[in-house]
Structure formats: C-alpha cells, structure tokens
C-alpha cells in the first residue's frame, strides 16, 4: 500500500496536467539531480553569479583547504607515523629528531595515551609516563616534521591487555596509582 504522498507523486509523474515540480516534490526515493534542478531553479537552468563571501570567510576556507592538502600529503609520505594504528589506553613510543640527526640528538618518548585530539593539522596525542620517579605528561603534535616514527608497545596497557578501555579520555588515571601509567623502566 502506497502512502498519500507516494500516490500523488506517481500520478504527477505520469503524463497528467500537473506541473513537473509536483512530481519532484512528492517523490519518495532519493531525489535525482534532474528533480533537484526542477525544484530549485525552475523549469530552466538559470545562470547564477558566484556567491559573495566576505574576505575573511574566503581566506579561512582557503586556509582549511591548504591544511587539508598538507594533512593528506603527510599521511602519504610518512608511513612510519601514520601507518601504526593505536588507541587511547595503549603504550606507544615516539622517535623525535630531525632527518640527519646524530644518535645523541634523537629522543625516544614513551607513554600511555590518555587522549587523542583530532583537529586536522593539529592532530595531537596526550602521553603520560613516570620517568625517574616523576610523573610527566606531554602533548605531541603528530604532523610535526621532527617526528620520525610511532611504535605501538602494548595494547590496552592500562588494564594489562585484559580488557578494552571504555573512555575517550583517561584523565582519571592522574588521581590513581602512578604505577598504572609507568611505561619507562626508570
């Protein structure tokens, strides 16, 4: 049994005396591009001037597109960083240093992922670790050119691999026993 709208649409689509827009307005399936053209621009495609956007809006849109291109090119050119898949609650290790750095200039950072902030070019990771007896937290941007690679050490480190983490941000670990978030052995 067809509903009322569907029956009107079917009647209008057939060669009845009703105008074409009624068929498009009452169509129950996804509208085709031809139906959309009929609804919005009338029976003929109309020539429209480009919409006036304030210079600030145009600039911010352009910046967004440029940042999107950078994000795409980074993800394609750096499989060591973007190929490893990690979640909140895992223990990861980052290698930070410029391309031709000597051995003593390269830094290895370990930590439990407390949160991931996905904001395009400012994609960042919050790491917590206990180093030399002192709890340390770091926020590191993953699109940094100094970042060489990301390595997953242990999944669900917070629960020792037994169960999954059920939160997006693990700030509650700051009030708990620091041994839970200790990745580095002194």
């Amino acid at each position, binding site marked *: 049994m067809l509903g009322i709208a569907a029956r009107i649409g079917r009647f209008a689509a057939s060669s009845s005396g009703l105008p074409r827009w009624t068929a498009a307005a009452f169509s129950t399936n996804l509208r085709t591009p031809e139906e959309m053209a009929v609804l919005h621009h009338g029976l003929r495609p109309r020539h429209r001037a480009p919409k006036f956007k304030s210079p600030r809006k145009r600039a911010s849109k352009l910046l967004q597109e440029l940042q999107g291109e950078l994000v795409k090119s980074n993800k394609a050119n750096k499989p060591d960083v973007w190929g490893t898949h990690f979640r909140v609650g895992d223990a990861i290790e980052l290698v930070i240093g410029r391309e031709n750095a000597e051995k003593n200039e390269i830094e290895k950072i370990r930590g439990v992922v407390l949160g991931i902030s996905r904001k395009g070019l400012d994609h960042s990771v919050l790491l917590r670790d206990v180093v030399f007896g*002192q709890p340390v937290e770091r926020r590191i941007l993953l699109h940094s050119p100094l970042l060489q690679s990301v390595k997953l050490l242990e999944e669900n480190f917070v629960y020792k691999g037994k169960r999954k983490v059920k939160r997006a941000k693990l700030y509650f670990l700051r009030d708990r026993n620091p041994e839970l978030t200790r990745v580095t052995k002194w």
Partner: protein
Amino acid sequence: MIQQQTILKVSDNSGAKTVRCIRVLGGFRKKYAKLGDNIIVSVQQLRNKSKKTSKVKKGEVYKALIIRTKVPHKKKDGSQIWFGENSVVLVNKQENPVSTRIIGPLPKLLKKKKFQKFISMSSGLI
C-alpha cells in the same frame, strides 16, 4: 606560574623540604616565574632526617632555580610538557647549587652551558 607566596617543593639534598617564593626575579613588577627562572625563597620546612645535618636552616633566604612546574612548558614545534609538582633547587647568590644531588629529572629546556652543573647532579634530562 610561580608567584609570591607560592609554596614549592625542594628536590635536592640541601635539607630543605618546602620553600615559599618571596620574590620573582627578572624585571620590574614581573608577576610570574616559569621553568628555568630564578626566584628568591625562604625555607619553610626541613626534611625530618636531616634536621641536624642540613646545610640550611628554617627561615633562611636563598635564591632558587625552578626545575619542574605543573603549568605546561610550550616548545617551538607545538609540543608541551608538564610535571606533577612545582619544584626548585636551592642556589646561592652566584647561582651555583647549594646541594650535591638533585632528585628527579630536569627538562630539556635546561640543556644549556650555564646549567651544566645541575645536569651533572640530576638523574637525567627529559
């Protein structure tokens, strides 16, 4: 953001346990001190075990170097680092350390020539 009246921990073996900031050095009406700055402190508490053997006494005024803060230190590449406590190392008028050992790590911000003595006394750099 360390300012006057802030109570800080001491992480060296000078004998002091906590100190209170009484002046932020480095400018006219400078309000806040951050990682790597010098401040003037007065000793509030001593560690229990070293009351007889400590190098400092309660109420004495010293200079101090801030080595760890809870406020994030922002680096030029956008990354940030912060610790679980506000901590200092006591220092004399010539900005040389009073103690012989530093407990805990130092931030990489202090990897400069003038902090060489502190780096050699600590357990490591983060």
